[in-house]
């Protein structure tokens, strides 16, 4: 049997201790005057900075938010019951920051960058502050590359560009998170060799879960893992049970992670799910810090809370490396009320919104996007030409359909042209339905929309539309794969290509078998 001599053990122990220096340690201290509800008031610490981390006993961390004349107001990131009146508080001389870098891909971390997925420590020495200033005008350029979400309705009518801020808004249970998760899953394509050849840069994703159930977050992570999307994604989570200060800083941490890619000339997509819960957390701690309440009891700077976060989304100028940070904030409304305080604020900050409605959702239109009031103010510039061409009439057709739909419900006699518009609209709505976790590549979206808008589906019964679309895509793939290839490469529909699509579509119509 092998033996270990005691002096060997001592030698190893001594080695561990050699790096330890026993000099006088100099630090700044203060005393806790008052503590409770996740807030501490501290006497002393006269040199402390705003948003600096301070250390309480029992390894509880805090962040300074208020600098008053004779005390310092501070929020706790841990159990407030572990901190008592009279405890001493130490400065750390470091503003709240988070580790950044590619080491965080595939990880689940809390807003301070501490991993919570049990996969061990994160080995990176790059730290960036959580609160950073947004870039100025000179460093930016207009959005110009598309960010494909893989959702036909979005990519066709509410296109999102890299560096844009697009709000996803809707009641509970309308599929807001599903849209965001699909967008993450669809970025898998950008990491392939094929995309590299076509000049599409990879998009790294950050999913920030704020105030959600831990079980929901676990589900999302499992789904991303299953789809192979965790390889390029970091999940930042401050669940509902965690103290309000952590929920408040979570989106800023996520933005910092995304900015690392942006500043290195890469592209990132950050999803804030959701900002209404963050506003509620901020309201909680503002009221505890005795800041005066305003409308709906939110503090006066709740607009700044979201504007400074979303301003950090940007497309950098070529001089700065041309990186981008796309933000998809999510807001939950109550009974479709978009005129509440937080929704109006965030709508006005963002570059457009995807509006999800529960009655559409219940009617089986999923994703339940109301395309009538959803807009994208800048994404149009980023849309590829081919999509622009086929989607041009789509929005109009759908608008006409919705207008007539209301009349048609009365069952009165309708003339031929009205019936035709209704039939076309119904088919288009059917076409835009899409399963969850099932993103569609852009070239396939173009073909299905082409078939829908050019009237190839007029003779197809409504119940067959989905099957028609699926089989058409399969047919194109097998018999005319070069069409997809040309669409990917040329990114526009030339007359020659259109003729080929037409020919293939007519061929397919003849072989399609209706169910009745």
């Amino acid at each position, binding site marked *: 049997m092998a033996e270990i001599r005691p002096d060997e053990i001592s030698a190893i122990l001594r080695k561990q201790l050699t*790096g*330890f220096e*026993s000099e006088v340690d*100099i*630090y700044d201290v*203060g005393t806790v005057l008052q503590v409770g509800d996740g807030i501490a008031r501290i006497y002393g610490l006269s040199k402390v900075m705003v948003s600096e981390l301070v250390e309480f006993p029992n390894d509880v961390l805090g962040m300074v938010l208020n600098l008053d004349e*004779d005390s310092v107001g501070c929020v706790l990131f841990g159990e407030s019951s572990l901190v008592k009146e009279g405890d001493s508080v130490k400065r750390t001389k470091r503003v709240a920051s988070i580790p950044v870098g590619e080491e965080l891909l595939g990880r689940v971390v809390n807003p301070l960058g501490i991993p919570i997925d049990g996969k061990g*420590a994160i080995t990176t020495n790059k730290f960036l502050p959580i609160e950073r200033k947004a870039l100025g005008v000179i460093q930016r350029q207009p959005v110009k590359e598309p960010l494909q979400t893989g959702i036909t309705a979005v990519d066709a009518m509410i296109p999102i560009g890299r560096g844009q801020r697009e709000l996803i808004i809707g009641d509970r249970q309308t599929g807001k998170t599903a849209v965001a998760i699909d967008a993450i899953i669809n970025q898998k394509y950008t990491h392939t060799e094929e995309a590299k050849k076509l000049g599409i840069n990879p998009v790294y994703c950050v999913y920030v879960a704020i105030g959600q159930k831990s079980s929901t977050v676990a589900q999302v992570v499992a789904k991303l893992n299953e789809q192979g999307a965790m390889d390029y994604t970091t999940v930042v989570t401050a669940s509902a049970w965690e103290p309000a200060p952590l929920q408040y800083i979570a989106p800023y941490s996520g933005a910092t992670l995304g900015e690392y890619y942006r500043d290195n000339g890469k592209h990132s997509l950050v999803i804030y799910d959701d900002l209404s819960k963050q506003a509620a957390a901020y309201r909680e701690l503002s009221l505890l810090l005795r800041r005066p309440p305003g409308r709906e009891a939110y503090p006066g700077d709740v607009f700044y809370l979201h504007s400074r976060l979303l301003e950090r989304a940007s497309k950098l100028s070529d001089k700065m490396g041309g990186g981008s940070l796309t933000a998809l904030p999510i807001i939950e409304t109550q009974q479709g009320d978009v005129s509440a305080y937080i929704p109006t604020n965030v709508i006005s900050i963002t570059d457009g919104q995807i509006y999800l409605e529960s009655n559409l959702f219940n009617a089986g239109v999923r994703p339940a996007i109301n395309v009538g009031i959803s807009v994208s103010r800048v994404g149009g510039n980023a849309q590829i030409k081919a999509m622009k061409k086929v989607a041009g009439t789509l929005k109009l057709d759908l608008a006409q359909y919705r207008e007539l739909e209301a009349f048609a419900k009365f069952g009165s006699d309708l003339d031929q042209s009205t019936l035709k518009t209704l039939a076309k609209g119904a088919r288009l709505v059917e076409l835009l339905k899409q399963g969850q976790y099932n993103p569609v590549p852009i070239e396939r979206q173009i073909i299905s929309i082409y078939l829908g808008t050019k009237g190839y589906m007029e003779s197809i019964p409504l119940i067959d539309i989905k099957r028609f679309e699926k089989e058409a895509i399969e047919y194109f793939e097998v018999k005319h794969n070069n069409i997809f290839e040309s669409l990917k490469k040329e990114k526009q529909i030339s007359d020659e290509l259109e003729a080929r699509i037409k020919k293939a579509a007519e061929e397919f119509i003849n072989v399609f078998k209706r169910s009745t």
Partner: protein
Amino acid sequence: MKINFKISHRYAVSLLESVIEKKKTEKVILDIQLIVNTLQSSNELQVALQSPVIKTEIKEKIIVELFKSKIDNDSLEFIKFVIEKRREDFLLSIALRFLELYDEHIGVANVEIKTAFEFTKDQKESLQKRIEQILKKKARLNYKLDTDLIGGFVAQVGDTSYDASLSHQLELLKKQFLKGNISLN
């Protein structure tokens, strides 16, 4: 006794300025120290001063009775003024702030020293010298015993701690081990 930085600071500053003008600082300092000691040693007096039930005139009488023969007339006038302005419950914090401001004025740092054991005279002397060297001004050391430190001492100047205690060293050592960068080669 209530603490309100703004109020006590304002009264203390005005007192300091007036005594410097009259060149009576030495006398007044002793008076204020006497007041601080009296107030800190007698809880009853503090309660009496704070009580809203007791009339201002009676409070004034109590104070005059107590300090009349022991302190300078200027100091007594100041206390009367404070009571007249109904700030008697801040008297202690005003007095403490005054002492702080005076130390600042003459350039003396107040240093709280916590030690695990009683220091010898030699040790105290060398510590005093070293601290004055670091702070580059005169220091007044107030010693306190704290056996929790195990060994060494902690010196606190204002908000800054100079920690040379054994308990803190052990804490740091524990943190280093917990960091987990143990390499066995």
